[in-house]
């Protein structure tokens, strides 16, 4: 780490958070570059958090137009048609985000993210994707993992009153203070593809139902060629059929994935602002931890369901072979 000091401005602005994670962590944050794909409400909250935290730069990718639905849960989009007319979601959010912290460089990257090469992703320290199809998630994750340097990879999705975060930090080494000592830690994160390939039968019996339900919906959208979130209650029969097949293949009981849960995920494709704030806050802290190297990262899935108010961490990885 080159010992560039924080400027007087930065020290004054970041005073309260430097007291949480230290000046060194703040320096690392100020040099970091984050890529964000899919500007829905939760991601808007996440971006707000990391911009306030003082990352080096945030690059937004989302060429979709602003819609009525986007206005309902994305507070970065002010309901003034003059401001958003003719602009993409990424462009409008970029304009708003800049205001939160002039020291952070916020910009827009246009184009189809699946066509961006490995070197493109190499410019970033963390990549966060949302509203992403199964195929795209795997592809982007693979490109990130190909790079020699570590590019932290996250997926985040909120459907109705549920939220899911996935974390992939590859081989993550970090140190932490335990009482008076410094302890060196190492964690190995599986890729998204490897994670979801873990046979369901091998998962703990009490694994979050939301994990399984999201995988069913994910595969349904993939098989039907739908855009993420493009579902409705009319799809329920098809989804239930897919659930039956997947449960048979995986030798698990269908009751593990309740009908009611699948219904909620199919219908509730728009987001609740409070859930966006909760998930956006958690994801923000995860990215800050990974960039600063301070704090135990979440490994490797997080689920939230406002119906029961529970927040669950699931560590889904291949069981280590018994020697």
């Amino acid at each position: 780490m080159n010992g560039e000091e924080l400027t007087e401005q930065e020290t004054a602005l970041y005073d309260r958070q430097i007291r949480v994670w230290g000046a060194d962590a703040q320096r690392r944050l100020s040099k970091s570059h984050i890529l964000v794909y899919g500007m829905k409400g939760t991601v808007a909250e996440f971006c707000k958090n990391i911009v306030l935290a003082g990352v080096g730069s945030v690059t937004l990718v989302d060429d979709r137009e602003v819609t009525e639905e986007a206005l309902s849960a994305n507070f970065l989009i002010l309901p003034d048609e003059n401001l958003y007319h003719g602009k993409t979601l990424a462009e409008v959010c970029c304009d708003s985000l800049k205001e939160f912290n002039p020291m952070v460089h916020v910009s827009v990257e246009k184009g189809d993210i699946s066509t961006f090469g490995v070197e493109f992703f190499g410019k970033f320290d963390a990549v966060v994707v949302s509203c992403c199809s199964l195929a795209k998630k795997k592809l982007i994750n693979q490109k990130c993992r190909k790079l020699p340097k570590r590019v932290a990879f996250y997926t985040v999705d909120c459907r109705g009153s549920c939220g899911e975060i996935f974390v992939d930090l590859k081989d993550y080494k970090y140190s932490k203070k335990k009482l008076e000592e410094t302890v060196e830690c190492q964690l190995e994160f599986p890729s998204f593809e490897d994670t979801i390939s873990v046979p369901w039968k091998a998962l703990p019996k009490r694994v979050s139902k939301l994990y399984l339900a999201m995988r069913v919906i994910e595969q349904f959208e993939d098989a039907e060629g739908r855009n993420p979130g493009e579902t409705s209650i009319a799809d329920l029969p098809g989804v239930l059929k897919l659930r039956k097949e997947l449960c048979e293949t995986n030798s698990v009981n269908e009751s593990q994935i309740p009908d009611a849960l699948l219904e909620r995920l199919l219908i509730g494709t728009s987001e609740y602002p409070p859930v966006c704030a909760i998930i956006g806050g958690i994801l923000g802290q995860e990215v800050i931890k990974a960039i600063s190297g301070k704090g135990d990262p979440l490994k490797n899935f997080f689920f939230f369901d406002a119906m029961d108010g529970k927040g669950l961490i699931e560590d889904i990885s291949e069981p280590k072979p018994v020697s």
Partner: protein
Amino acid sequence: MGVSCGSQGKLTITDDDVIEKSNLSRQFLFRDWNIGQAKSTVAASAAVSINPQLKIEALQNRVGPETECVFHDDFWENLTVVISALDNVNARLYVDQRCLYFQKPLLESGTLGAKCNTQMVIPHLTENYGASRDPTEKQAPMCTVHSFPHNIDHCLTWARSEFEGLLEKTPAEVNAYLSNPSEYATAMRNAADAQAKDNLERILQCLEQEKCETFQDCVTWARLRFEDYFVNRVKQLTFTFPEDATTSTGAPFWSAPKRFPRPLQFSTTDPSHLQFIMAASILRAETFGIPVPDWVKNTKMLAKAVEKVIVPDFQPKEGVKIETDEKATSLSTGSVDDAAVINELLFKLERCRNNLPSGFRMKPIQFEKDDDTNYHMDLIAGLANMRARNYSIPEVDKLKAKFIAGRIIPAIATSTAMATGLVCLELYKVLDGAHKVEDYRNTFANLALPLFSMAEPVPPKVMKHRDMSWTVWDRWILRGNPTVRELIQWLKDKGLNAYSISYGSCLLFSNMFPRHKERLDKKVVDVAREIAKGDLPPYRSHLDVVVACEDDEDNDINIPQISVYY
């Protein structure tokens, strides 16, 4: 979410604070150009630009007993729900009491760094906020702070207290006297206690013995403060309690955690001594409205000015009382002839006042930790570190000093956002209505670990007597303008023997005092009016009394407040 966006909706927000730079790292409704403006007004207009349908009113009042004229009965009665985001326990307890009284849901939350905590308080469904309290942060005993510090926190607490006393409270007292000398004098004569005597002594000191007219006077004051705090007081302390002193049980007096202090020796070659003088003299000058000359920041010239100060010799005295009892809460020592001394002091003050230029006032300084150019933190750190040096306690840098003395709460945007989201989810349930206690969630989370812990709120404790049961949410109502006797009889009919009745902090009746018998046949409201001396608000038609009762087996029964209508 669309809350308070309908034609009948209203969101009232209040905060007495203004925006400063360090807020911007998480209070994202504010921008750089809002620094200095009122938080509530700026937040309100930012919120309206996000959703123009929001009906919002922004106030700048604290919520406490002193603003009950603003947040009066009607205000509370018209609320649907209260959401608090306070930064101290006392304010939370007050709001909790109000919500209890007016039976309003309270959605309470707080963050500390990466940790966040939410608690839902729902009338009749959950316990109130005050029902379970974290053990309060232990405040060091007064004698520890004043004479026997053993860590830097004690030194900083002392420093903060001295700062406030010297630069804020005393100048404010001076002004109170000068603005209204006869009223002030009467108040002091009426009080006739140790506190009044102390006040007058300090005012006289400011206006007579230690009055400053030039900047050199301020340097003198600073140098003499140094001598008093870090030399003379220590000499006196170790004279009264020598190093080999023993307690009444024969054990060494100066045993751990007490640390034996040594006096400092002032030297113009010690930069920390000079820095102390600089900060102290600059701030003293500010309170007297004396301009600060440029040469102060030049160490050589400052040293020269300090060397001019004549420092009187000090001899420790016999028989000086130094408080060693940890349970003592006051350092003022009262004595029989306080009243006479007070008169003498007032006479001297009057003479002083006549020699002052007309309209003379001092300028009290309010501690502002975040302005790096105001010398406040310099003085606090200086006071604390010199004291630490006396007691061989490791000193701290200005940043750490600011953290401790400024009682700063570390804060980040992420846990703040999470706490807000969790509270808003519960808000849906409150507004929906008719939810059971099991539907609500209290959360504790620590994003650093990460840890997420959710639980159902705890129902309120149920108290029973005969066939009645009640919780802290209940209030009993007695109409018809009853007399004290009638009130007592009403309770007797319930099997409760009332032995004392209070209204606020006034005792209306107690069966311990024979002379209270004459109050039995008076109306409760009239007794209250007599004793509380016109404390009854005109807009109310009832008063709330707390009655202490026993059952027939002499067991104390904790009954609800009783609203007596008249």
